[in-house]
């Protein structure tokens, strides 16, 4: 636990009971992660091996992006592939060959497993190994699963990064610690963090995933990694398996969260005195930006449906920095260790739920009548038509929200629907 984070163990939700629910889950599968991951990794291609449903899902989620010669596609399984497995491997080779001929600029190819490919036990790791041998050194081929049976929404990024960890080069660094920031961040956020780290005096830091697969960060037992996203359980474990050590911290959402995250980074690198000085101006700007939104949001009740695992850090930010009341905080998966600092910061007695039975959760939501509901696009318009104000959650994953300069924008995502409701009623 970082010494600079003031945690009082008699408060918060560290030991709070969590409502565990099983039932219909209104969530995306991990394939959706491709939509933002391919924007981040500029020379990577994501080939889903799945059904027409998978292709349709990505198309629906990607909206218009799909038309700009995207770096993702689906190899749609048909009846012939289901008939015999050996045949499916040959088919996959043929599809990959055709794809790489078409896109000679690709350096990293992910074979992404889906529900159908998992259920028929199509061995994509073997395929990736075979294809890697064939196309290296031009193209490295890796695999991970983005299937709905195994991953929920942002867990697709976790699976992808975890697949990438074993191929990270070994750092020659022997003594001094080096810092690795883990989790895809918008370029603008990454650049801001890089400037702050430099100002703090951190010499060696890198971001993972990197923008190009030819410049993957190196790791060693001297590597300290700091998670920028709360949904990276498997990636963290894979990094730990290679000797790197996680720096515990809350997540960089809001002025307070970003400051604690930066302080944790500084402490892990053995710096302390320049940290405050380096982040002070940005922190002040963030607090100033938040003040305007606090007037609108303070005292309002917010209800989170599970979606991305960002719910707990977001709820913490809304409660502590904007004075909102938490009706229920739902998350698809609660990683107690990675969220320890966040849970300690949540107001005591917050209703937490993990998993989902969507109809029952809707009943609870209707009974509580929150002022704003954070939910997916499948629920948002139906709830609006029932008179609720909603904030659709997928935008929280696609918009730059981390860091000091985005704190005001993040609060703005919640004030806008409330303001709009007022404007339209007037």
């Amino acid at each position, binding site marked *: 636990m970082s010494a600079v984070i003031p945690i009082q163990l008699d408060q918060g939700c560290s030991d709070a009971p969590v409502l565990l629910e099983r039932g219909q*889950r209104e969530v995306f599968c991990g394939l959706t992660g491709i939509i933002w991951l391919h924007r981040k990794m500029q020379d990577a291609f994501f080939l889903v091996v799945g059904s027409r449903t998978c292709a349709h*899902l990505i198309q*629906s989620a990607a909206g218009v992006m799909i038309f700009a010669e995207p770096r993702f596609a689906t190899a749609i399984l048909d009846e012939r592939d289901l008939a015999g497995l050996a045949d499916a491997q040959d*088919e996959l080779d043929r599809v990959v060959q055709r794809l790489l001929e078409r896109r000679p600029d690709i350096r990293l190819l992910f074979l992404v497993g889906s529900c159908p490919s998992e259920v028929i036990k199509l061995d994509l790791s073997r395929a990736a190994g075979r294809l890697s041998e064939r196309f290296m050194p031009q193209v490295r081929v890796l695999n991970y699963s983005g299937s709905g049976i195994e991953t929920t929404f942002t867990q697709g990024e976790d699976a992808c990064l975890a697949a990438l960890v074993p191929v990270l080069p070994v750092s020659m660094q022997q003594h001094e610690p080096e810092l690795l920031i883990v989790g895809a961040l918008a370029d603008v956020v990454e650049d801001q963090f890089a400037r702050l780290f430099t100002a703090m005096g951190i010499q060696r830091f890198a971001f993972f995933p990197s923008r190009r697969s030819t410049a993957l960060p190196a790791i060693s037992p001297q590597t300290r990694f700091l998670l920028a996203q709360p949904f990276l359980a498997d990636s963290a474990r894979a990094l730990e398996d290679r000797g790197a050590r996680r720096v515990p911290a809350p997540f960089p959402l809001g002025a307070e969260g970003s400051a604690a995250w930066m302080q944790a980074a500084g402490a892990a690198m053995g710096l302390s005195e320049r940290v405050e000085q380096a982040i002070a101006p940005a922190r002040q700007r963030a607090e100033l930006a938040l003040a305007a939104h606090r007037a609108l949001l303070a005292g309002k009740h917010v209800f989170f449906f599970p979606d991305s695992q960002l719910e707990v850090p977001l709820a913490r930010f809304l409660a502590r920095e904007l004075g909102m009341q938490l009706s229920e905080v739902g998350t698809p998966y609660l990683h107690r260790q990675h969220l320890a600092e966040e849970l300690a910061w949540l107001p005591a007695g917050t209703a937490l739920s993990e998993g989902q039975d969507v109809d029952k959760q809707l009943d609870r939501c209707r009974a509580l009548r929150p002022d704003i509901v954070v939910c997916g696009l499948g629920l948002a318009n139906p709830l609006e038509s029932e008179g609720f104000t909603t904030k659709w959650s997928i935008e929280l994953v696609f918009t730059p929200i981390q860091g000091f300069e985005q704190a005001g924008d993040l609060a703005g995502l919640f004030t806008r629907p409330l303001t709009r409701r007022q404007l339209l009623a007037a």
Partner: protein
Amino acid sequence: MQLTLWTYEGPPHVGAMRIATAMREVHYVLHAPQGDTYADLLFTMIERRTERPPVTYTTFQARDLGSDTAQLFKDAARDAYERFKPQALLVGASCTAELIQDDPGGLTQALNLPVPVIPLELPAYQKKENWGAAETFYQLVRHLAVKPSEPRAKGDMPRCNILGPTALGFRHRDDVREIRQLLAQIGVAINVVAPLGASPQDLARLADADFNIVLYPEVAHQAAGWMARHLGQPATKTIPIGAGATREFIREVAALAGLDPDLAASEAHSHAPWYARSVDANYLTAKRVFVFGDASHAIAAACVAATELGFKVVGLGTYSREFARDVREAAALYGIEALISDDYLEVEAAISAAGPELVLGTQMERHIAKRLGLPCAVISAPVHVQDFPARYSPQMGFEGANVLFDTWVHPLMMGLEEHLIGMFRGDFEFHEDAAPSHLGGPAAAAAPPAALIDVPAPPAAWAPDAEKELRKIPFFVRGKARRNTEAYALSKSVPVITVETLYDAKAHFSR
């Protein structure tokens, strides 16, 4: 395996959802893994529905596979029945659940629910969305329509059913309103509109109609066939898209209803035929148009383009394999080969090769056209949110014909604008590199998708003076002139294209 960047149609269970969502008092229990609920947002976002689709998913996960997914399905079906109390329950499996081979139909029968349970067999690895919609509607009709024991007593007015409109259908909402009005005008009563807005009880009385109107064969063709065989109801064949087809449709309906149609009265609001005759529309003559979409809309659009707007149809195709034969027959009318494909790269190559001046297609063609710098209008699903408009905008009937005229002509340069550009070419504001005002932004000059399409090397070099002469030809026909000249040079084995060759080619092609 088929390499797919994107797809014109979703999987068949999305077709089933379109039927369930269109109807009232129906619930669909779908055996599907976590994540398949993405399909809900097609309805809540693209169509902006105010209610969740009436679909319960089992959303099984990996840990459920080891245990009893069949029990999961039974629980989901029972809970869904208890919560929603539908008049009929649809049950089925999505692509992944098809692989694990639980039997939704059998499992639900075992629950002894007090409502009809209709199992859907939708082969996800062979069939697609429209097939799924057609099959689901057919199964609903087959299970629920009650065959009367004795012939129906004839009422005052002939009665019909309107079949085919669904949720997520391109302009289905307004087409139904337009056709309802039309039928009221000619004196035909409507028994049931289905599936859009119908309940299982409504389907039970489908037999009370004298005949059926099939608005969308992709959805209703199979059900209408069954009703013709088992309920003795004939069905219409004409799709009333365009003023001419609407007149034909009225004649067909009147014949089935035994009425004498008053064409003149029903046609009163038809502006499109006059607009097409007005002199401003002269410049539309023989505009090259490429048409792609679902079979019905593509065939209808090609007919309107050729016979009502005086365009030249240079390409016609569909992604609906089930109706490939109809499209081939239609294409033969225009002396062209139909393109039957669901691969957008093939469509893009075909559009590029045909060199049209207007593309009529789906949202995919809209993007292809944007990339090629061509004007485009949308005539068929799949479409994006802007094609579920707030305003009244049918495709069918006489108001539909008006909508088509405006929609298709708008992306083209208006006649006067085109004339001015021809007259003042080289003028500082009307020069050839200026963007057409309707496309906005800089001229889509370069950026051809060179990587996608094999463009054969030019057969002959252009002499500098010929190149200069070519640039005097208005830019919107220059591409065609260049292609024609090069083809001519190739056929005559001319090594260098001179000014002479250019005009020889012009003379050759103008014969």
